[in-house]
């Protein structure tokens, strides 16, 4: 019996050997055949030499979360071969370079072997050692095409597009693909029992990584100052911003740029520059990961207390400390929510797709200026650095940036005494002025020290308390401004609920389907932001027990919900994955099933 469009292929390569473009070619060919695909890089903190993997899940049903169990392993890395052989599902396939005979320790009775003499073929066809290396990767893609019934014309089309600027390279690449394809067709039964069939399931979807979407979002949101410090996995956010800004924001006549990017000396300086630029009326942002957030705590406290708009994109990785720099986690939730000393709270956003990375980045700039406070977007390595199938980006040309309450010279003339921290509207949000607005009015010293309503330094207890209480009023105002949670049902129908967010979403959705088939029905809510609105509170109170799915050890979101909404901790049951790999539907199903059956006993 054959399985159509539902399998996992994993490629085992050596880091730094040019495998990335071959692997992307493979993933994209599936996407082009109209079938949902979810590729994930599993890479080391290394530039050259260590093992690296590329795992591609193909799912007719559109399940894009990670799935355990490899159907076809393509191994071109002897270093990891033992581990790779073991990871194949019983009955699965193992493709290897058969130039040399496979050692018996790699032989398993319960899997099938596909030997392709990659090195031999390369040595025969190419003389340049670098080409031998690169085309080895392309040959195995060609071999996979035959094994998995990938349309050869799709591969040809992709290669032609990729090398549109270097047409010389098109023919040799296609030749390499053909070598692999021919070899399999001449020596093996093809296709394998699991394989591809063309569909029309991806529609207008796009394939993009979250970091690029954030960078693009910042360009659309009108960010003009980007200050950053390199750190995996966030570096490509700033790089994408630069790439798109170079494309769209350079004056064709003068060559001058409508943006400024500074690679700062460290994360402290990066966020300092962002705060300075925003204070002076330019939209500015930085991107970092957990270690950077630790360093930025002091400045986040300043921006909170002095009420300076700030946009921070945190692409989370596995902590604590340096942790696993190239693995994913959702573990900066609490440090971000309460960053810095004293009583502080910050607005958080949780995107789960590249489209949301784009949309929420745009929202972040509006929210930062409307609320005059830091907005921290929590994405992660899985979303940021892997290509994801996503709804396409949409823009409304009539959209105006919401710059919040900023007084101009005329408004300053019309009012009496200007009070930077006077709550005129009763929503906790006060009016700010940008330097150089008015020759004689509106100036104040922005500061992290306590001050009165007129921004004059004070150590008066009442004035301090009034200010801190006003910041809470603003916090309440924020609850209705931040993106609302997404509900999976119009009305709650079950006693059990489930909460998830960010990159746990796709595996959670798949798990819900499986659980439903097994007779376990749950209502579901996806969080998009913090502070939590009333709707979040209502959802939890409407259920007997609520599972909270997240990717960290200490159930940080559960803790935040418990603390902020005053919920009995026993009501919230953690479903956790924190090994650095993206959470799977299997794990969620297992945990929830166990818990539900325990309750029934």
């Amino acid at each position, binding site marked *: 019996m054959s399985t159509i469009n539902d399998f996992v292929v994993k490629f085992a390569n050596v880091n730094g050997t040019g495998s990335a473009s071959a692997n992307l070619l493979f993933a994209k060919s599936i996407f082009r055949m109209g079938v949902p695909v979810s590729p994930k890089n599993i890479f080391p903190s290394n530039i050259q030499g260590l093992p690296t993997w590329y795992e591609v899940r193909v799912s007719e049903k559109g399940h894009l979360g990670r799935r355990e169990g490899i159907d076809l392993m393509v191994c071109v890395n002897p270093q990891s071969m033992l581990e790779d052989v073991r990871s194949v599902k019983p009955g699965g396939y193992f493709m290897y370079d058969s130039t040399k005979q496979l050692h018996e320790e790699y032989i398993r009775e319960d899997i099938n072997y596909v030997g392709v003499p990659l090195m031999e073929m390369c040595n025969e066809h190419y003389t340049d050692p670098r080409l031998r290396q690169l085309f080895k990767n392309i040959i195995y893609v060609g071999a996979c095409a035959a094994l998995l019934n990938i349309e050869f014309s799709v591969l040809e089309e992709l290669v032609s597009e990729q090398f549109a600027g270097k047409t010389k390279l098109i023919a040799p690449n296609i030749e390499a693909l053909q070598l692999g394809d021919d070899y399999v067709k001449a020596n093996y039964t093809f296709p394998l029992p699991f394989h591809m069939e063309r569909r029309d399931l991806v529609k207008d979807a796009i394939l993009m990584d979250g970091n690029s979407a954030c960078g693009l979002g910042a360009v659309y949101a009108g960010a*003009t100052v980007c200050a950053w410090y390199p750190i995996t996995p966030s570096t490509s956010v700033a790089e994408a911003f630069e790439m798109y800004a170079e494309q769209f*924001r350079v004056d064709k006549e003068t060559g001058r*740029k409508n943006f400024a990017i500074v690679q700062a000396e460290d994360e*402290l300086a990066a966020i300092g520059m962002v705060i*300075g630029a925003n*204070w002076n*009326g330019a939209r500015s942002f930085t991107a970092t990961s957990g270690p950077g957030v630790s360093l930025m705590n002091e400045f986040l406290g300043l921006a909170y207390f002095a009420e300076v708009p700030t946009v921070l994109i945190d692409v989370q990785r596995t902590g604590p400390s340096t942790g696993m720099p190239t693995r994913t986690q959702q573990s900066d939730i609490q440090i971000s929510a309460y960053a810095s000393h004293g009583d502080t709270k910050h607005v958080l956003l949780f995107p789960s797709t590249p489209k949301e990375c784009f949309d929420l980045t745009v929202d972040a700039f509006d929210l930062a200026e409307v609320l005059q406070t830091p907005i921290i977007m929590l994405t992660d390595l899985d979303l940021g650095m892997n290509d994801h199938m996503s709804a396409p980006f949409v823009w409304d040309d009539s959209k105006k940036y919401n710059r919040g309450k900023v007084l101009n010279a005329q408004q300053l003339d019309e009012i009496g005494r200007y009070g930077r921290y006077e709550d005129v509207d009763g929503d906790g949000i006060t009016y700010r002025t940008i330097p*150089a607005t008015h020759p004689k009015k509106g100036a104040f*010293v922005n500061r992290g*020290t306590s001050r009165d309503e007129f921004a004059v330094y004070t150590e008066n207890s009442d004035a301090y308390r009034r200010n801190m209480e006003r910041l809470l009023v603003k916090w309440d105002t924020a609850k209705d401004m931040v993106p609302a949670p997404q509900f999976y049902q119009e009305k709650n129908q079950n006693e059990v609920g489930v909460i998830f967010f960010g990159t746990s979403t796709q595996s959670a959705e798949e798990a819900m389907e499986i659980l439903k088939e097994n007779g376990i029905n749950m209502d579901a809510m996806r969080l998009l932001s913090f502070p939590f609105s009333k709707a979040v509170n209502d959802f939890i109170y409407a259920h007997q027990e609520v599972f909270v799915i997240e990717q960290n050890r200490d159930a940080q979101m559960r803790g935040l919900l418990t603390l902020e909404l005053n919920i009995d901790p026993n009501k919230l049951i953690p479903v956790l994955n924190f090994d650095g790999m993206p959470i799977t539907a299997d794990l969620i199903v297992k945990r929830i099933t166990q818990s539900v059956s325990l309750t029934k006993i």
Partner: protein
Amino acid sequence: MSYIRPQFRHPNLPKNSLGYTSKDYEGGLSTLCAGCGHDSISAAIVQACFEMSIEPHRLAKMSGIGCSSKTPAYFLGNSHGFNSVHGRMPSVATGANLANRDLIYFGVSGDGDTASIGMGQFVHAVRRNLNMVYIVMNNGCYGLTKGQDSATADEGSKSKAGSVNPFQAIDLASLAMELGATYVAQSFSGDKKQLTPLIKAAMHHQGFAFINVISPCVTFNNNVGSTKSYDYVREHVEATGTVDFVPMAEEIKASYTEGNKALVKMHDGSYLELHKLATDWNPQDRISASMALQQARAKGEILTGLLYVNTDYHELHETLGTTLTPLNELTEKDLCPGAEALSDINAGLR
């Protein structure tokens, strides 16, 4: 103690070309100790801005934390200020400058704020040649925490309590020069006549203008044995000469160097007129300027005045190639690529 400055002013106070009196450049009443050198520096800043007819709102005051960093509240009350966090003023100033290249950024820091916690940010602001004035009010001690030695305290200098500093001092003027600051001056808070033109020229300089001002701490570091006391500094100051700042409106006929007089043309067409006392030193040659500074140091002297100036080097915005319009004035039309471009991007991702 009153925090309200008396409003009474002589009706015939002189006015500058904007019609402002020096009063328009004052700030709140200082809360520093009576006799603090920092207040004298604030007064020099007020005078420089008044004489140059700076529009107060076209200047932004930037500072970190410490006694010195409090001073922006005590001058230029019609200018926006940013009293940021300890040692981090350079990054905040960098961001502010990126947002609007047209304002004057006036940074005030102290020896703790710059030479210790803020060293990392200071050196990088210098390295980028950020267009700003950066004054260190240098008293060799931590005044706000009651007089601990700072990193600029000289080795062997004695504190009020009698302990002797065992560590070498960081010489900020030498460091700034070494790092490539394009305007380096040194002065003494007790010499307003020298300091005021140095501040004026610094504000006109396109690039990083650093002024290290020895500013004795009257409460914690003005004792016998301290090398940052009023008496000690007065006895050991050695001026490089005097400086006059000539605004561009005034025509300069002589564009030559004559004897000990040198004219340095600033970026905006104004001039620095130098009357040199030290003849073997060339303020436009970094090696010569460094040498003069080192030689004075070896003799136990504090060399003051303009030490080095380079008016040719590109400041940060030029390095980055940013538009001449302040970035904070750009609108949706300039910034957003629009829906059509986005659908092209979508098409490229399929």
